[in-house]
């Protein structure tokens, strides 16, 4: 990891709509040294009058990529996310620095099973881990439990369906908490101890656990896992606030 952080000018290489409110921004970052799955990229916008707004986004792409992908949810009254999801075009330039953060990362070096618990756009850093796992053809038993409002709000839906269908040890479990498509037979309630006890690894499996989502979601999931007997030291959490937009 680069020790001294410096801002670099990245160029937008591509944009992909993920859902109605979520877009992936693909960046070419000069001299990118690679990153670890789960790390962040800081992004800074400067207005003509010099006013600056800075945000830290989870990197969505696998660690081996030469490009860096950020997946951004549009927050209606946000300062940065409406710009990234509505205004930015290919070829535009953005100031970035990173990668940063070595706490919420999965390096794929452990054989312990992995439990990924996502609330909404909290799936982004967990997707970097799932992509890294797939890229390395890892067979580490992994479960992703993903809580979304509706089927249309599931980010990376097609890719998750594909990765989960490869029978290589990755299971993807959804719970759709607001609306469900006709004939939906999956889970519909918010993630709680009872749901986790049904679908998560058991404490004796000693999973490495990563939980990412809005603060209240993370608090509930982490507390439920501890209540079920999971080792708090093996549960890593990443909360994102409501004003992060």
């Amino acid at each position, binding site marked *: *990891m680069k*020790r*001294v*952080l410096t801002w670099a000018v990245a160029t937008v290489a591509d944009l992909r709509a993920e859902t109605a409110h979520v877009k992936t921004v693909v960046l070419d970052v000069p001299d990118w040294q690679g990153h670890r799955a789960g*790390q*962040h990229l*800081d992004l800074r916008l400067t207005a003509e009058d010099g006013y*600056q707004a*800075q945000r*830290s986004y989870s990197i969505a792409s696998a660690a081996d990529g030469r490009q860096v992908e950020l997946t951004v949810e549009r927050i209606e009254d946000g300062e940065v996310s409406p710009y990234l999801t509505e205004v930015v075009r290919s070829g535009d330039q953005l100031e970035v*620095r*990173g990668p*940063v*953060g*070595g*706490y*919420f990362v999965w390096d794929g070096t452990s054989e312990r099973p992995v439990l990924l618990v996502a609330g909404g756009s909290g799936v982004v850093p967990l997707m970097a881990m799932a992509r890294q796992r797939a890229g390395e053809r890892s067979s580490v038993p992994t479960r992703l439990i993903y809580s979304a409002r509706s089927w249309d709000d599931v980010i990376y839906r097609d890719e998750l369906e594909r990765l989960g269908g490869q029978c290589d040890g990755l299971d993807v479990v959804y719970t759709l908490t607001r609306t469900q498509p006709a004939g939906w037979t999956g889970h519909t309630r918010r993630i709680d101890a009872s749901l986790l006890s049904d679908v998560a690894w058991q404490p004796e499996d000693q999973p490495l656990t990563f939980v990412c989502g*809005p*603060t*209240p979601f993370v*608090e509930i999931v982490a507390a439920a896992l501890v209540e079920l007997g999971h080792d708090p030291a093996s549960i*890593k*959490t*990443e*909360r*994102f*606030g*409501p*004003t992060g937009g």
Partner: protein
Amino acid sequence: MDARDLVLDGNAAAGLLQEVFSADVTAAEGTCGGCGATDLVGALVAYTQAPGLVIRCRQCEAVLIRIVTDGRRHWVDLSGLRTLQLGG
């Protein structure tokens, strides 16, 4: 919005911490000067919406790290930390 929603993890401040310390402090282990609890800085309680960055102990909520920046200089208060263990 609930004030509780503003509570993030130390990991959310990874960029600023690395800017100040030129090291990945989120993976460093901090010991609270108040209660003696030890945690990785990335797992501590962080408030990033304050005028500066405030990092608190997850056990006793004592203030461990405060950083205020004006864009050029950083004002760093580590008086709440007993120790900070960096490196492999």
